[in-house]
């Protein structure tokens, strides 16, 4: 009886373990599929709002524009068709709400003539737009599709669909701009890159020094106090780091470099560096301590000093462990959101120095997801950013995997 019960019990546990394992795997796969299907929705779509078109004069020889060009045109930064491959003619902007600018002085002064032109309920608006477009060779008009009738005297300008290379290499990130949204993620990619690289440049020497100190120099009592403290650092929530950055690091940078604002890439790098330190220290220290005693003794017995032994034997021996620690540290830095959001100033522009505000990918997602309407272009663009982050993190983890497996081979 007892035997049967324990057999059944064992079976149940096996089934439960099997189920939880497979359910977890399925969920992970589903999340990845979800992420990528949402994230890939962006490509091949037009960056304009649904139901609107760009219209130009029939004589205009420009056939198509991309989102970035349209954005620059409507911002008044491109003022001549020559710049976008057309003839030498200045660009005239036309939006529905500034239609009266195209009326003559008297027409505008006189309410009756405005009504006469547009119609009581704007029913003559299509003809009016048509006339304006026809009359101005340099015009570019952003109009609703419903105001374009079959007698329209202008022509529709094609707008390029969003492509992967636009997304990856585009220099402008204006996801909510009018009349077109521009999704160039390069500033965000570079922002992430800069902040992470400098975080690691700053954290690696410091972390390595601490690891060497703890593993090789410090008295065991000191080490036994230091180690838990450093591990504790890893457990502090990132908002707390962000807060520390905001209150201490940001004003410090602002004062030292005499900047208008202290929220800069440098502040982000410092905070991320501090956050990556526990990972780097713990993993490097473990790697250093796994150096066999026989290696150290061999070196010392040859008359090498302790420091010579550290630099010539211990560090080379533990180099792959240290590399793994550094990469994992970078991994943490790349994915970190809150703290960076708080101290980097969040300007989606390509940084030229460390003393400018930047914006990282995770910070962008966190800051913008709330205002992006579900299923919209902006929403999909944020998912695409998520995919990029996912791929970067995966590469980082893969690198660690490869390096530590190489480490095992050397050790055996």
């Amino acid at each position, binding site marked *: 009886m007892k035997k049967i019960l324990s057999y059944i019990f064992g079976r149940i546990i096996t089934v439960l373990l099997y189920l939880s394992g497979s359910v977890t795997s399925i969920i992970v796969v589903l999340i990845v599929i979800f992420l990528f299907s949402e994230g890939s929705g962006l490509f091949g779509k037009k960056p304009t709002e649904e139901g609107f078109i760009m219209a130009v004069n029939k004589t205009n020889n420009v056939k198509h524009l991309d989102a970035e060009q349209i954005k620059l045109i409507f911002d008044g930064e491109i003022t001549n068709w020559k710049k976008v491959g057309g003839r030498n003619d200045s660009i005239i902007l036309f939006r529905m709400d500034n239609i009266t600018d195209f009326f003559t002085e008297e027409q505008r002064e006189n309410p009756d003539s405005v009504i006469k032109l547009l119609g009581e309920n704007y029913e003559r608006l299509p003809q009016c737009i048509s006339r304006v477009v026809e009359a101005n060779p340099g015009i570019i008009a952003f109009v609703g599709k419903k105001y374009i009738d079959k007698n329209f005297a202008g022509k529709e300008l094609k707008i390029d669909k969003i492509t992967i290379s636009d997304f990856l290499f585009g220099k402008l990130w204006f996801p909510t701009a009018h009349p077109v949204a521009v999704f160039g993620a390069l500033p965000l990619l570079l922002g992430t890159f800069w902040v992470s690289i400098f975080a690691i440049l700053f954290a690696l020497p410091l972390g390595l020094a601490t690891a060497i100190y703890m593993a090789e120099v410090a008295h065991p009592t000191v080490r036994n106090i230091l180690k838990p403290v450093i591990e504790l650092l890893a457990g502090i929530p990132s908002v707390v780091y962000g807060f520390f950055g905001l209150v201490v690091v940001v004003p410090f940078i602002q004062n030292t470099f005499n900047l208008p604002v202290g929220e800069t890439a440098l502040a982000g790098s410092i905070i991320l560096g501090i956050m990556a330190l526990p990972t780097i220290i713990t993993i490097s220290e473990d790697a250093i301590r796994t150096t066999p005693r026989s290696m150290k003794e061999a*070196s010392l017995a040859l*008359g090498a000093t302790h420091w010579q032994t550290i630099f010539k034997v211990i560090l080379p021996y533990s180099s792959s462990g240290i590399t793994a620690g550094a990469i994992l540290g970078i991994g943490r830095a790349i994915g970190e959101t809150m703290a960076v959001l708080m101290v980097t100033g969040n300007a989606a522009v390509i940084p030229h120095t460390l003393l400018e505000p930047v914006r990282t990918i995770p910070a962008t997602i966190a800051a913008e997801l709330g205002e992006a309407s579900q299923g919209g272009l902006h929403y999909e663009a944020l998912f695409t950013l998520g995919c990029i982050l996912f791929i970067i993190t995966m590469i980082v983890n893969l690198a660690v995997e490869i390096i530590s497996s190489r480490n095992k081979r050397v050790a055996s």
Partner: protein
Amino acid sequence: MYKIESKDVNLYYGEHHALKNISLQMKANTVTALIGPSGCGKSTYLRLLNRMNDLIENVRIEGTVLIDNKDIYARGIKIDELRKKVGMVFQKPNPFPKTIFENVAYGLRVNGISNKSYIEERVTRSLQNAALWEEVKDKLKKSAFELSGGQQQRLCIARALAIEPSIVLMDEPASALDPISTAKIEELIYELKDKYTIVIVTHNMQQAARVSDRTAFFYIGEVVEYNDTKEIFTNPKNQRTQNYITGRFG
């Protein structure tokens, strides 16, 4: 005058009294074998002579150890200088994860020697002295890990010889090796005697009898008998020594 001399040495690992009143003298250019059952303090004594025990926590040492008539535990002694004079070969071959050449050159490099042709010459000579040259001369740039266990151990000997110590300590240098490699190393020890003073720990009675001039029998932290090797093996004074060398315990 003795090359190595220890007087009333006591060593404690924390509470554990590992060496008790050890007084031994060794002449230059002799081979001294340390024998005795496991855990009796042979390695501890050997590591006393190049201050390797300093690495272990809670070690307390009393008494004096003189090398070339100088107290090596006196204040102001440079440990790395001492270790350049007193080379050591460990029980298990422990080459560095570097090339064969770099393994032997290591001791020279940490000594600040950077003259390339001088290093090359010394590496060659050390490998020749360690009877390894013929086997490795074509693969000096290969990893030391590609060598067999016996070759690795001779590499470690070459590495120790490269810095030209005057004393070589060997802690069971052949215990992990096959009979042929063991024979090679014994032959080597015999040849090295001309230039070096050698102290060797071994569990192999025949080996002790073959290679050494003097033998010290250790028993639970004490030296029970210390005499010419021939005497110890043919006419031991102490009953425990006799029991041990005839294999009745150990």
